[in-house]
């Protein structure tokens, strides 16, 4: 490889954040390191784009896609690229189908922004591009690239530690107290570095438009039409020199929300899942990443819970799409069969923060009564007044809320008990054995992500076990998880299974890494014949094993794809010709076209499989 090629290669890799590098201050040598996390993230491109498409807008997806293809980009370059595209689109009467089918290969093509999409999803003016970018920045899906972005985490840690030592502890760190102080200082430094990438968002927020915009945005966020995304004059134009890239961590948070939504839909039901999705969306707005970094996110005294705050019922109601029928999805039971006390129970865990539980419960009851009233006295002015009072007292800032309430009360009678229905769904979520939400205060809800994701992992593990070892296997594993370590005999007794069956299943699952065995000798001689053999299962271990297997399977899928590509090489070569591209069906001979479409079919299948594997991996590893 010539130095030129090498330099070019490094540049391209850098462009896509696939490398860390550090220029040593001593001798000017540059050290490179592979950024495997980002490399893996490439497998998630499709998912992220789809997420942006549905949760923001098709045009946002388009911008995201361009960003993905070009790696980190200067704003001005992006604008220029789109400008030429817009011109092209305006000039060309006919749109050329772009080569989306080849997009995985396009990754290497530096700055090759040629994505021409269907007219209704693409950007029609640079102003629109600007506002789309602003939205993405506000959603933290795009972050700013700065000097330290390219340092590996270890290097950053080293730098910050050195700096802290030089600045605050010139005499060295002494004593336990000093150590803690030092750690805090380091964490603070790390946090500062991390927050640097959010500078653009902060700037937007300072402009004061962000808050307002978000409001409008979430209100119309799902309409398919393009009109809502026309240029909005209030948007500040972004600094053209700013370099931006995709913030994978935040994307992961969004993906996790979707996953949780699916989980709830599966466990409880769709209407409840809708509610949950809204709750999660509100809750995670300020959540930057799924997993906290132990080195950085040390709690400071007086600081609120990092990331997760709480959401009130009213907020959820405000953001719930009006088309969702909340009366669906719940069973009916007469009032005497429901214990409202149990349902409304407020759990102020994590227990560090104290809440006046008695008071909270009284409040809860009171609000329930209120809702009843709302239900009965529908169109009277009194209820409107009550809404107003509530709106003001609970959240004086959110005047909009109050207005909405009043409107709702005046306009739609049939949905008057909507807040009540919403509460029912939320309470159901709170009561679930998976603890999807926590009723952390009267009408306040939050999610304990760490234990919840743990449960979710277990559930996913369960489904793998059930699919590979059947119900008996699942029974044995869950039994062990519940009871701890057991010998074979008690296993048979509790599981109500035959000895042979248990033995066979356990062996099978041991090979698969779902259960493990421990030998406990009865005496010092450790006679094997006399030893106890205890079965147990280690979730952590099984999960790691499954993740490894999934990586392997993922690679297999891609390898198979390559095999098929090789096999259909002649056909694919043909489709690469510029006179064939886009008109494959008309130009190619039928026999060839059939082969081509079959290849496409298989390719789709394999990519889908890779995506699903990633679903699995991200759940076990990242969420």
């Amino acid at each position, binding site marked *: 490889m010539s130095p030129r090629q090498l330099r070019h290669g490094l540049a391209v890799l850098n462009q896509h954040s696939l490398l860390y590098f550090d220029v040593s201050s001593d001798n000017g040598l540059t050290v490179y390191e592979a950024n495997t996390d980002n490399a893996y993230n490439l497998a998630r491109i499709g998912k992220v784009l789809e997420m942006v498409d549905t*949760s923001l807008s098709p045009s946002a997806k388009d911008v995201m896609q361009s960003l993905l293809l070009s790696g980190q980009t200067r704003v001005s370059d992006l604008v220029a690229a789109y400008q030429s595209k817009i011109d092209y689109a305006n000039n060309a009467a006919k749109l050329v189908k772009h080569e989306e089918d080849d997009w995985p290969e396009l990754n290497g093509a530096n700055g090759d922004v040629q994505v021409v999409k269907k007219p209704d999803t693409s950007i029609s003016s640079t102003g629109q591009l600007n506002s789309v970018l602003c939205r993405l920045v506000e959603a933290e899906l795009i972050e700013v690239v700065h000097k330290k972005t390219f340092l590996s985490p270890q290097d950053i840690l080293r730098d910050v530690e050195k700096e802290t030592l030089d600045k605050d502890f010139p005499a060295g760190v002494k004593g336990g107290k000093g150590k803690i102080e030092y750690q805090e200082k380091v964490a603070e430094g790390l946090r500062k570095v991390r927050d640097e990438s959010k500078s653009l968002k902060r700037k937007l927020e300072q402009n004061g438009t962000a808050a307002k915009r978000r409001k409008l945005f979430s209100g119309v966020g799902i309409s398919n039409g393009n009109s809502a995304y026309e240029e909005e004059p209030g948007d500040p134009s972004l600094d053209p020199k700013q370099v931006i890239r995709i913030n994978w961590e935040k994307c992961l948070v969004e993906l996790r929300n979707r996953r949780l939504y699916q989980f709830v839909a599966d466990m409880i039901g769709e209407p409840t899942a809708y509610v949950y999705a809204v709750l999660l969306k509100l809750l995670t707005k300020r959540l930057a990443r799924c997993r906290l970094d132990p080195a950085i996110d040390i709690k400071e005294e007086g600081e609120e819970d990092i990331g997760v705050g709480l959401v009130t019922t009213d907020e959820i109601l405000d953001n719930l799409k009006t088309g969702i029928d909340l009366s669906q999805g719940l069973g009916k039971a007469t009032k005497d069969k429901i*214990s409202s006390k149990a349902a409304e129970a407020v759990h102020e865990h994590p227990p560090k923060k104290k809440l006046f539980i008695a008071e909270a419960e009284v409040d809860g009851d009171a609000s329930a009564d209120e809702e009843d009233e709302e239900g009965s006295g529908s169109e009277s002015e009194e209820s409107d007044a009550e809404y107003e009072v509530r709106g003001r007292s609970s959240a004086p800032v959110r005047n909009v809320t109050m207005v909405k309430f009043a409107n709702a009360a005046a306009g739609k009678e049939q949905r008057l008990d909507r807040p009540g229905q919403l509460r029912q769904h939320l309470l159901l979520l709170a009561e679930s054995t998976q603890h999807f939400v926590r009723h952390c205060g009267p009408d306040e809800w939050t999610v304990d992500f760490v234990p919840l994701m743990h449960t979710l992992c277990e559930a996913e593990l369960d489904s793998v076990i*059930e699919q590979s070892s059947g119900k008996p296997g699942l029974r*044995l594993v869950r039994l062990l998880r519940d009871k701890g370590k057991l010998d074979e005999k008690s296993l048979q007794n509790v599981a109500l299974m035959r000895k042979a069956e248990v033995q066979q299943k356990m062996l099978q699952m041991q090979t698969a890494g779902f259960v493990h065995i421990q030998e406990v000798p009865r005496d010092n001689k450790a006679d094997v014949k006399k030893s106890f053999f205890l079965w147990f299962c280690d979730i952590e271990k099984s999960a790691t094993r499954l993740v490894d297997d999934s990586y392997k399977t993922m690679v297999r899928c891609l390898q198979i794809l390559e095999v098929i590509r090789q096999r259909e090489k002649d056909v694919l070569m043909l489709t690469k010709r510029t006179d064939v591209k886009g008109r494959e069906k008309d130009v190619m001979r039928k026999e060839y076209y059939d082969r081509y479409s079959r290849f496409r079919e298989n390719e789709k299948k394999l990519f889908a499989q890779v995506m699903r594997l990633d679903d699995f991996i991200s759940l076990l590893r990242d969420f």
Partner: protein
Amino acid sequence: MAGNEADDAAKIAILKDALYDEVRDHGSESRLFSQKDLMELGIIPAGNLLLLVRVVQALTDDKLFVGVNSGAGIAWRWRSREDAKKYTSLPNDETMMVYAVVDEAGADGIWNRTIKHKLNMHEAVVKNCIKYLETKGFIASMKNVEHPNKKMYIKANLRPSERATGGPWFTDGELDSAFIAELEDIVFEYIKTHSAYLGNQGLPRDAAGLRAPKKGIIKTEGGEPSRGVKRPATEITNDDQQVAASGPSSKTYHADGTAVTTAPGGRPRGKVYLPMPAGYRHYPTVLDIAQMINDAGITNNTTLGPHEIQQLVDVLTYDGLIEPIKVNGRRGYRVTRPTKQDTVAFSERQKQREQTGGVLIDAPRMGVKPPANGLTEAPCGKCPVFELCEEGGPVSPSNCIYFMRWLDIEDSAVARPNGVMVV
């Protein structure tokens, strides 16, 4: 002198009967009587210890009394006359001793090696005795669940103890899987119908632009028949053509904008089990279920107590079919994933099962299939040679027949030599 002796014998015989009857009145067969107890019965005149000894000796000889070495010295318990007769009818001492050992073991039974060990007799002798006793119908061989390979003996007129039989779950020393399975079915059905609300699931309102979530299915043309691959949300972006082709119905937006691709399996819409509102107080408890089972009289010769039902319910919980839920300290059980459960009535399902010979087509016996998973559905997830598979090895992705079958590519093509590849 002779007359005196005869007189004595007659006296002892009378005292014997009197003492025996008195003892029988004072306790069950298992009660131990010490010498003091016997004396205080007031049968033996004037506290004549010598006389008591003689009477007791006579009774023991008749096998009506059994001497037992209790903690506080020797004591006796009585034995019924029928049993005693069996002893006295035995031909020799060895047989009698063997019978005594088996008798002592009671309902738990005894292993033949233990008998030998206890009596310190030759194996052949023990064998002979056992054979004799068995043919006479005094003892019977039995099976112990805890030691299925040991040859155990029990007195013929006793029923093996619960410990030996393993309780109601065992029939003839074997775990009665069919019985358990049936009961599991019934318990699950009961919980399902009593912990969820059978209601109509209307379609989400269309007016607001919300479409009914449909299951996105990739039809595998000519591939695995009737297998719908659930379409992952992500795949939509992979190919815009497909989205365009399948039209907007494959995607549904909701409040959050998240595309909805999940939906209850291919069932026709209509009746659906819905979760009960939070705080529902009537989730069935173990006692409820035990009551139901007993009332229904399904188990006509075994009674299942709450303990047994708890075992069943625990198993169902481990199967992930039901989950415990505590409301106001009342521990009830409810079905998991209620909306996914089928609403076919139990009797209907039974009928269907009878028709198909016990096999339900495309449905698990109880509950629902586990959610699909990317790993287990790929050929690799079930591949028997997963660990061996590597490029250059005997099995490798480039010659993987499972994948080719999965993708529905002819096997013959696999053998083509130019399958070399680099990734």
